């Protein structure tokens, strides 16, 4: 079980460039999430998905897009990168039944710098 994997681990972008952060999980989790973590701060939810084909905005969705065509994959697209998007990005997944007891499993993060 690889758990939650993210690629790349590090990336430097120039202002205006675009890129896709990849996220995959092999635990058959129905829920997946994307967070950003700015230096010394907590996690802010960008987008989440409750199943294949279903996505919804979180707290800070502007400048990002997602898709969920399969249960396993949940890529995050940055269009027209801006310095404000410099951050560490975490992907997470969980199995959410009606009880809500299951924790989130996190990937190792992607450190993105926009200059």
């Amino acid at each position, binding site marked *: 079980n690889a758990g939650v994997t993210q690629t790349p681990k590090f990336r430097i972008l120039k202002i205006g460039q675009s890129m896709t952060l990849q996220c995959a999980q092999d635990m058959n989790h129905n*829920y997946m*999430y994307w967070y950003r973590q700015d230096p*010394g*701060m*907590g*996690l802010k*939810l960008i987008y*989440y998905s*409750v199943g294949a084909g279903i996505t*919804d905005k*979180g707290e800070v969705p502007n400048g990002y897009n997602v898709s969920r065509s399969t249960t396993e994959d949940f890529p995050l697209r940055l269009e027209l990168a801006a310095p404000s998007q410099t951050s*560490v990005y*975490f992907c*997470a997944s*969980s199995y*959410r039944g009606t009880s*809500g*007891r299951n*924790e*989130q499993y*996190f990937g*190792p*993060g992607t450190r993105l710098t926009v200059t």
Partner: protein
Amino acid sequence: AQTVTQSQPEMSVQEAETVTLSCTYDTSESNYYLFWYKQPPSRQMILVIRQEAYKQQNATENRFSVNFQKAAKSFSLKISDSQLGDTAMYFCAFPTGNQFYFGTGTSLTVIP
């Protein structure tokens, strides 16, 4: 609105001593779960402990335990016999609906 508050941005503790990290939350739900996550310098988020709100008994995992006060909506984490490897950011988290809400974190330093 669901909120999670950690009022201690930074804390330190001597090795082998005990430290308590505070967390308060706001909810109108009666049955829910609460989590503490640890983020060491490696940045990997690691689950420390989980508490079920309908259980009166406080959760314990080895040196980690919680003090859960449902009426006060308080969920503190106690670390006993602190070790150097406990140095990390600690986040309190509260899942509700389709989302997890995280506190802003407490940076804990264990001093040798």
